[in-house]
């Protein structure tokens, strides 16, 4: 039991459960199939966004260009299909490659120059977003094939959206990477103590580049999923990812200085944010007050998490 309470995902799970039960009690339509579908879609895409940042938080850095990479991949995906008629799977692979290249470039410049990731990704944020605007002139691509639209908007087994399948695979793969593979352990080791991990024979530059490459791919996947869901290649995709990408891992107990993240808890963090957003709409909250409530709820969520931590520490001291 004690171990359970101390796990990262315990606090967020508690909050999520309370929120789900509370919402379902007040508003029966919360658990309607359509609403479950909407929730799962939000969970999928926002989960990818949060993971993209989480990997970088794990090595103790920040990636401000998550949204810019995702946006560039999204408009490349839609643009390839509309302008050159590239078939959807190939376009998706090329878009993922763009995400990969973006991430590798970030990682390469950080590892090669030793300049803070914050600065490098701030610059690359401008570059990727600028290329996006230069290509699209801020106009969306509309020529998304029906198959892609259907993939983003249809369901199987009742309320389960098809998008859930690739996302679930990615989530499991990320968990496996961080908990079972040596690359994952290296990422966490570099995040925990860069100097010590270098001494123990880990190639820090290689690990940094690998982490950024994964982050780029995850961001690109989120961009592609959003194109399927929104049914258009919007140049503004990615503009408002930054806050969410940090909020979810942090609610999930990630340490911003690196070395400690939890895949499950991050996913629960995403769920909490999604439920909060829904609650505001479901309970007819004055649109002018929405922001206040959202901020308050984020504080409350992290407060609960923090309070649990402090209690665990105290009980440890006592014993």
């Amino acid at each position, binding site marked *: 039991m004690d171990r359970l309470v101390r796990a990262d995902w315990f606090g967020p799970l508690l909050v999520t459960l309370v929120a789900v039960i509370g919402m379902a009690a007040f*508003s029966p*339509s*919360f658990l*309607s199939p*359509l*609403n479950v*579908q*909407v929730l799962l*879609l*939000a969970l999928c895409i926002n989960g990818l966004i949060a993971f993209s940042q989480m990997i970088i938080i794990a090595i103790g850095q920040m990636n401000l260009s998550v949204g810019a990479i995702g946006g560039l991949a999204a408009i490349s995906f839609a643009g390839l299909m509309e302008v050159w008629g590239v078939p959807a799977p190939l376009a998706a692979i090329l878009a993922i490659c763009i995400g990969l290249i973006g991430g590798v470039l970030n990682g390469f410049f950080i590892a090669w120059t030793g300049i803070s990731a914050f600065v490098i990704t701030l610059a690359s944020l401008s570059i990727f977003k600028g290329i996006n*605007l230069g290509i699209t*002139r*801020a*106009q*969306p691509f*509309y020529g998304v094939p029906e198959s892609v639209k259907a993939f983003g*908007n249809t369901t199987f087994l009742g309320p389960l959206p098809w998008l859930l399948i690739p996302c679930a695979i990615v989530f499991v793969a990320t968990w496996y990477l961080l908990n079972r593979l040596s690359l994952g352990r290296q990422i966490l080791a570099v995040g925990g103590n860069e100097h010590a991990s270098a001494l123990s024979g880990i190639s820090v530059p290689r690990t940094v580049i690998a982490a950024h490459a994964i982050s780029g791919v995850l961001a690109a996947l989120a961009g592609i999923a*959003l194109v399927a*869901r*929104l*049914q*258009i290649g*919007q*140049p*503004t*995709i990615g*503009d*408002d990812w930054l806050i969410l990408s940090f909020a979810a891992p942090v609610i999930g107990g990630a340490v911003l200085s690196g070395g400690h993240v939890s895949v499950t808890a991050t996913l629960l963090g995403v769920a909490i944010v999604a439920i909060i*957003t*829904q609650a505001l*709409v*479901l309970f*007819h909250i004055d*649109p*002018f007050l*929405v922001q206040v409530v959202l901020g308050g709820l984020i504080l409350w969520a992290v407060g609960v998490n923090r309070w649990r931590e402090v209690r665990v520490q105290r009980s440890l001291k006592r014993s």
Partner: protein
Amino acid sequence: MSISKKIALAAAATMLLAGSAFASDTQVALVPGGPHPYFTAWEQAGKDAAKDFGLAAADYKVPPKWELSAQNELLESLLTQGYNAFLIFPGDPVGSVSTANELTSAGAPVIALAGCLKDPSPAAFCLGTDTGHSAYLGTKELLKAMGGKKRIAHFTGFLVDPNTQLRIDAVEKAAKEEGAEVVQVIADIDAPEPAEEKINAYLAAHAGEVDGIITTAWVPAVVASNALRKIGDKRIKMVGIDHDEVVLKAIKDGYVDGTMLQNPYGQGYIGSFAADKLRTGCKVKADAPFKSNALTTKFIDSGTVFVDAAQVDTYVTAMQGITKDLFANFEKTYLDCAQ
């Protein structure tokens, strides 16, 4: 994009005869508040106007972001680059006044386009859609389509945009007149992701509690059209806004009942014409028949028209009609060019 070009070409063809081509050194800049599909028609409108009226230039210049400071920076830079007449969608109806003051004090006429500056301002006049009126008419059309049922939801744009409050009030007013109730206003969603999330969540939970949807901003109209198509609901009536392909297609397929078209091409074309005239000695008539709205007493309505499934294929003609009528009498009605 192809649609706005279609409008543009057709409108240009009808107006070629109107232009008198003599060279002028006027360089007009058409500056929207930020990138938005609504304004793309201005680009062609500026090009056509430059050709038809012999202007040195009438260029469409977009601030890369929706940000008052980005627009101010662009305007200052354009003035430095030698542009000498400005058609501006104010990034803020109040906050853009001081920049407009600087432009006019450098000798460049300023016309507020598509959105107005709040009086007192140096803008010669404001040429745009009467947003409140458009929302009002749209709601009336929606209630007509809904028949006896009376519960509507309203999806609209950013709360910091003052037009949003005008729209909320206008929808409320129209609903009250017909004895209908606005059960929900969802705002702050003129961006695709939050719009997608909030509109879908709302429809998922409350689709049974509303009979009609009015949208008064571009993105919510697109997202709501898609959402209705997704849940396959033709019981809920909807009136959208603007001419996005998604909305037009949803009208054709019967998921959306109609849309309130605005007239961005006419704004850019007539605005460029007027800016040149103002720079070369014309004055705004003291007794011009301006309308008033919440922001200014010097408002000219660039027109709005309701289009439903019957007219959706020929809506370009409907838009041309408004521009032609407005342009035919524009100089006579609003300008005083005794030189």
